[in-house]
């Protein structure tokens, strides 16, 4: 009898579970659709893309690269394998490598400066007692309300007046102050016991060395989360680079490079364009796959407000 009961329960249980899986799998298919399209098109030949044939990988049959023939090469030398052609063109037609390096340089400069500026302020707000502390903290809370993208025009005018548009500085300057970083690190520093700091002071450490040698090492989890938050936001940012970088390709970040590619893509370039998209999207997705929990914590940190 009891045996019957359990089997009944397991059956009921798994049928409702099965319905949930059906719904979630349907959702997952829609979510994954563009990733599938992107990866598939980055592997296929132009004709296969246009006619929607060849399945996911395409047939990978060599096709004739017309541009190569236009350059006066023999037809036999101009036969290319689709996936190699797509990725090779992505890197050769535009300086994609340069864009990637720009992206890395800009994202990491932003993060580095944000930390150098925000940490001392967060420390002062969390651990020092002084007149006006509440006012400063209120100011931080107010500044949390301001979306930097929204005030892009006055910032752009300021940078233009300083002659800084089309420079790395323009890409970095508006993001040097992260009020969110200050807020976050202050909340974290609050949880660090005062005894630790007092002991360090007894040892004769200056406030600066307390910040970098005592507070920073103990705040690594919060800092990691903030790093992820910051790097994801600025690697993917399109709006601000679009405004301050006009024309000078040497300064393009990956999103701008991809957008430029789209601008002059004709039918033959769909494959290489998708290859570029894959190259730009992959680093973060791989990092995400490796450190999922940290990423989700980092991105949702803003939920701690």
């Amino acid at each position: 009898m009891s045996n019957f009961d359990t089997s009944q329960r397991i059956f009921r249980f798994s049928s409702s579970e099965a319905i949930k899986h059906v719904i979630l799998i349907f959702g997952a298919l829609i979510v994954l659709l563009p990733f599938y399209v992107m990866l598939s098109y980055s592997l296929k030949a132009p004709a296969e893309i246009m006619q929607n044939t060849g399945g996911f990988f395409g047939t990978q049959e060599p096709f004739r690269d017309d541009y190569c023939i236009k350059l006066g090469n023999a037809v036999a030398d101009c036969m290319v394998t689709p996936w190699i052609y797509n990725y090779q063109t992505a890197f050769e037609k535009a300086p994609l490598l340069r864009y990637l390096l720009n992206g890395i340089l800009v994202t990491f400069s932003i993060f580095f400066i944000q930390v150098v500026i925000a940490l001392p302020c967060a420390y002062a707000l969390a651990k020092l007692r002084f007149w006006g502390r509440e006012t400063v903290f209120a100011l931080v809370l107010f500044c949390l309300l301001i979306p930097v993208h929204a005030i892009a025009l006055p910032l752009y005018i300021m940078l233009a007046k300083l002659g800084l548009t089309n420079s790395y500085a323009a890409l970095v300057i508006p993001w040097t102050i992260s009020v969110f970083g200050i807020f976050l690190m202050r909340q974290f520093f609050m949880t660090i016991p005062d005894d630790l700091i007092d002991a360090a002071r007894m040892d004769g450490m200056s406030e600066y060395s307390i910040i970098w040698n005592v507070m920073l090492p103990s705040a690594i989890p919060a800092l990691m989360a903030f790093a992820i938050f910051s790097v994801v936001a600025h690697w993917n940012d399109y709006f601000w680079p679009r405004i301050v970088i006009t024309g000078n390709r040497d300064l393009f970040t990956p999103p701008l490079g991809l957008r430029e590619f789209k601008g002059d893509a004709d039918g033959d370039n769909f494959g290489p364009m998708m290859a570029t998209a894959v190259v730009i999207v992959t680093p973060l997705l791989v990092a995400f796959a490796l450190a999922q929990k940290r990423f989700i914590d980092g991105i949702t940190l803003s939920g701690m407000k």
Partner: protein
Amino acid sequence: MSQSRVHLWLMAPALLLMLLILIIPIFAALGLSFTNYSLGNSGANFVGLQNYEQIFTRTTYQKMFGATIRYVFVVVPITVGLGLGAALLIKSLTRFGDLYKTIYFLPVMAALIAMAIVWEFAFHPTIGIINSTLEQGCGTVLENWGWYANGCERTFPLWLTDRNYAIWTVAFIGIWQGFGFNMVLYLAGLTSIPKELYSAAEMDGAKSSWERFRLVTWPMLGPTTVFVVTISFIRSFQVFDMVEAFYPQGGGPSKSVYVMMFALYEKGIQQNLMGIGAAITVVFLVFVMLLTIVQRWLVDKRTHYV
């Protein structure tokens, strides 16, 4: 505590940058919005409220508000609803929950500009995967649906280039991109609900899962919901990447996708009409600040109960 002024040195760089990068630009925008300033001109004339008058009377800006409001009021409820739904489903699973979580979170991580370009392919009227999939359903029971039969007879929608569909297609992509973010916020909120509350509710006669949701889950998720709704509003008000990628000029068919951030970019950067651009900035900031103040107020009101 030492009487030193070390705190001033520690805070000075941050305060200075806050002032220069966040506070002054707000006042600059406010000031500029009363002028006809253009970059490169030596001066500017004071034009009073003329810029605001244009924003609230001209049809271009009516379209701007129309597109923004349509987008925001479709994307926010659906991303919040889907986020909550996905979180509840995933939380109740015994296995594979983490796998779905990972998949649904992927769009949040991927550069929107890249994914927007991919979606544009998928929605392409002739070679796109969406219409070619729809065509395969022709001749089946689906044709009983008027819209579908119509699509089979003539053509399926042009999606991004049809003014009746464009804004909704863009909103769909926005939903696709954003709901995973809300899902993880809700998952965090669900984890913090004490299990005892469910047993207590059950003892009080809440037998069905809907009753348990209504009596325990939903009220306990209140603060999370307030936050999720606010952040969804702020994020969707800032929609730009897709619109610029799809419609570099003009904001889509009949300006039906002329959202605020794009208008700001077009007027201020492309056309160098800084006065009008600044006025849009001010209207935008007022929206965002009002929203956040309402959120803070709601949160404060709630904390009295806890």
